């Protein structure tokens, strides 16, 4: 069974925000909610500036799922983390738990009253009937059911944002790292594998 994953290649991202626009347009995301955004670090520093596209990473061990008091999150067979807006009470716990800032809350009224949480669905809709009007209204387009991948990944002009079967995406990225001949700069690599273990390092001369 395929497990859906996003992977951001910071070496390729040109901060065009095409992914952000594609997501907003495809899912008709309401004003004030950004399911995806581009973050730039070391802005203006020559040679050190990197941009990454951030949204829900559909964690294998999702903290949002762990803290939700009404248990509105669920994981599909494809590993996509989704939630049921009919159960969500808009408490905001998931927002505090998420390391990526993925959960978004539309303003539902005066005094900062929050509406039901909204986040990236990996273009996989929600618990409603596939490709139904109610599903689109609450969760956006269900591209996975149409045999497609998330609009953001498909729209990315430099293919910096990869999305799809985790095994395939990892293979594509591995090929890139080997071709570049230097360590991978994938975001979170050091946390996951420790420093000094970047893939694709050419062997030392004389070794």
């Amino acid at each position, binding site marked *: 069974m*395929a497990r*859906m994953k996003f992977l951001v290649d910071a070496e390729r991202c040109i901060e065009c925000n095409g992914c952000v626009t594609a997501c907003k347009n495809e899912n008709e995301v309401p004003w004030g909610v950004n399911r995806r955004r581009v973050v730039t670090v070391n802005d203006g520093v020559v040679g050190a500036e990197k941009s990454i596209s951030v949204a829900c990473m559909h964690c294998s061990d999702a903290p949002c799922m762990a803290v939700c008091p009404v248990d509105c999150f669920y994981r*599909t*067979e*494809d590993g*996509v983390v989704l939630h049921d807006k009919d159960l969500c009470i808009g408490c905001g716990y998931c927002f505090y738990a998420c390391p990526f800032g993925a959960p978004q809350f539309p303003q539902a009224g005066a005094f900062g009253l929050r509406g039901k949480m909204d986040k990236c669905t990996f273009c*996989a809709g929600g618990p409603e009937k*596939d490709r139904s009007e109610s599903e689109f209204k609450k969760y956006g387009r269900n591209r*996975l*059911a*149409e*045999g*497609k*991948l998330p609009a953001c*990944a*498909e729209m990315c002009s430099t*293919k910096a944002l*990869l999305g*799809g*079967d985790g095994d*395939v995406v990892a293979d*594509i990225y591995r*090929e890139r790292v080997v071709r570049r001949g230097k360590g991978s700069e994938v975001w979170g690599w050091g946390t996951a594998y420790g420093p000094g273990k970047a893939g694709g390092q050419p062997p030392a001369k004389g070794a």
Partner: protein
Amino acid sequence: MEKPTRRLSRRNFIRSLGAGGAAAAAALVANRPGKDSTTENAAARNSRGYRESAHVRNYYRTAKV
């Protein structure tokens, strides 16, 4: 006058050949397996999630560039 029974039987034989051929052709068309696109559309209707469709394979191909 002698009845042309042989001629008639030959006609019947040729007619039966034609009818049999048409029936065989119809059976072949009916039993032919569906095209790939038809199969894919049927899978699309039944599937709820990810599948490696031609569209997805094309995306993976472009991402390898």
